[in-house]
């Protein structure tokens, strides 16, 4: 995309003052791929929401899991890919969300589905004091520091007898009374809201002024700060927002798993799963986690009978992608074929050169 310099040629000195010329360019914010992408996303969302009327129960259940894992991946994508905050402790907020579900639904008797947004809020509220501690660390130290915080929450809950300590407890009693069709459909709809919502939310955020500032931070923290971006405040917002997403997913995930125990709720597997999705697909792109989810769940389906081999293959794939293709599978394809389904940049198109 080259700018035509002749457009800026000086005007004739003797000419009368002309009315202000229209700008010699327009700002383009969509591509053909993006229009296809938006249409496809809209249709896919409708199809997903309608799944209870056309799909079998097993597929609905699997799709629910895919969608909430995608939501987790998008929160980490926002954190690490745009905020530069490489956290290894997001399982803290998944676990806190799961236990918020226990408190709101079992202990306080609220509807389990109402507990999902409340769990997100709880995780976000707890992220505020957690941020003041972990933000003292930078880079790789931040990564392990967040992990320590997750361990602290796991051990605190393991020692809380009111929440059944390390044994965990079942949330089945909070679900009795909701007909099965409604329960399974509502789980799917919440998963659609979280999975599609996080993807769309990230897209809209990145197109806003806030997103522009985030991308500036990603490219150079010092330069962003020098042009007036409030880097610490922005990182803080990103951290708290990601905690909200993880907390809501934690509650939803354990509505489907039915049993909440500290080791499962605060498992490092949540963290490695979101990292795999983002890294394999392409960090710092909206489409990356979608591709990552396809690879992750595709491999799991292929290697369903070989649990250990599946994990070894995933670990090897993540390592290889990171070394050979650090932009991820989608990043690589997008560069080769100039794809951009969710354009977040502003392109200047000179008027004369046209479409």
């Amino acid at each position, binding site marked *: 995309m080259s700018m035509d310099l002749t457009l800026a040629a000086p005007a004739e000195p003797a000419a009368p003052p002309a009315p202000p010329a229209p700008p010699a360019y327009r700002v383009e914010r969509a591509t053909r791929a993006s229009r296809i992408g938006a249409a496809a996303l809209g249709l896919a969302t409708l199809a997903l929401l309608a799944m209870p009327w056309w799909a079998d129960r097993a597929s609905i259940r699997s799709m629910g899991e895919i969608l909430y894992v995608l939501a987790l991946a998008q929160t980490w994508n926002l954190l*690490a890919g745009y905020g530069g905050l*490489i956290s*290894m402790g997001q399982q803290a907020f998944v676990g806190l969300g799961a236990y918020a579900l226990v408190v709101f639904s079992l202990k306080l008797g609220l509807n389990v589905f109402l507990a999902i947004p409340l769990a997100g809020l709880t995780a976000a509220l707890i992220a505020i004091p957690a941020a003041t*501690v972990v933000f*003292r*660390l*930078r*880079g*790789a*130290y931040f*990564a*392990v*520091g967040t*992990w*320590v*915080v997750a*361990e*602290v929450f796991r*051990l*605190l809950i*393991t*020692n809380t007898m009111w929440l059944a*300590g390390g044994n965990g407890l079942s949330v089945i009693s909070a679900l009795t009374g909701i007909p099965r069709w409604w329960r399974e459909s509502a789980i799917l709809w919440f998963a659609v809201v979280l999975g599609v919502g996080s993807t769309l939310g990230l897209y809209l955020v990145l197109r806003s002024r806030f997103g522009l500032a985030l991308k500036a931070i990603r490219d150079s923290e010092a330069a962003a700060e020098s042009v007036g971006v409030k880097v610490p405040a922005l990182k803080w917002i990103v951290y708290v927002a990601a905690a909200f997403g993880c907390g809501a997913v934690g509650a939803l995930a354990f509505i489907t798993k039915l049993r909440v125990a500290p080791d499962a709720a605060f498992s*490092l597997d949540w963290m*490695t799963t979101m*990292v795999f999705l983002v*890294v394999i697909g392409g*960090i710092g792109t909206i489409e990356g986690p979608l591709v990552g989810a396809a690879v992750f769940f595709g491999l799991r389906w292929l290697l369903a009978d070989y649990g*250990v*081999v599946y*994990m*070894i293959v*995933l*670990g*090897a*794939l*993540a*390592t290889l992608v*990171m*070394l050979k293709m*650090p932009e991820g599978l989608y990043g690589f394809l997008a560069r080769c074929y100039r794809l951009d389904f969710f354009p977040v940049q502003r392109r200047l198109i000179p008027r004369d050169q046209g479409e």
Partner: protein
Amino acid sequence: MVDWINTVLQGLLLGGLYALFATGLSLSFGIMRLVNIAHGDMIVLAAYLAYAVVTHFGINPFVALLLIVPAMAAWGYVLQRVVLSRSLTGSILTPLMVTLGLSIITQNVLVSVFSADSRAIPAGGVETAAVPLGGGVTLGLYPLIVMATAIGVIVGLQLLLGRTELGRAFRATSDDQETAQLMGIDNRLLYGLAMAIAMGIVGLAGVYLGIRANFDPSAGPSHLIYAFEAVVIGGLGSLWGTLAGGMILGVSQSIGFRLDPGWGILASHLAFLAVLVLKPNGLFPRTRDR
């Protein structure tokens, strides 16, 4: 009262094991700025290797060290030259993710070879022997050996870094990698050697861990966390600080454990967070994190 003295002494000696966990991590971070997420899994890998050698050949685990330490050092060199060197691209994301992948691979390979059951290395009674100091105060013989080894390793590393040509090259690379390269230092070889030394210490730590406690393939990440905490509490680049960090973790863990068995590990994490809030650069910082 005597019980409390024993508790604190036990904690201090436990710090020796944590310091052994941490020195390898401190070395690789200090020289290469590499935070190895697979560090704990490498400790567990060394413990399994020792377990296999000890049970198969029926030898003493301290003799097995002669085999495990060089093997782990060689593995560290190869790992650095083949995989890790490619990950040191300037962004911290790449080495973190590559070593996370390595961690997952190691854990699952260990599960498929040794199963998920927990193991311990038989050491023929040395792990339970006690040294009475009079007045009811006793020290475990084995923790004393671990502490002596940790001090020996730290003294050895100090001499290596401070008194030898190789040590000077390490320090130069740690301070300014590009200038060191201009002065004719071969980075790749040096990084390989640094990782070999770090992994040799990991071999030592793994065997000592396996004699002291049960281990299973998923135990690695918790050991990484202890190692990391000891390094951060001590302050970057300070090996004696790392030992002090290990001791702080050990003492808070044994005091917490004495108050309530569920609080032991929690107490050491809280001690770490307290140091972090009060002194973010650690107690004895020497190197600056760039």
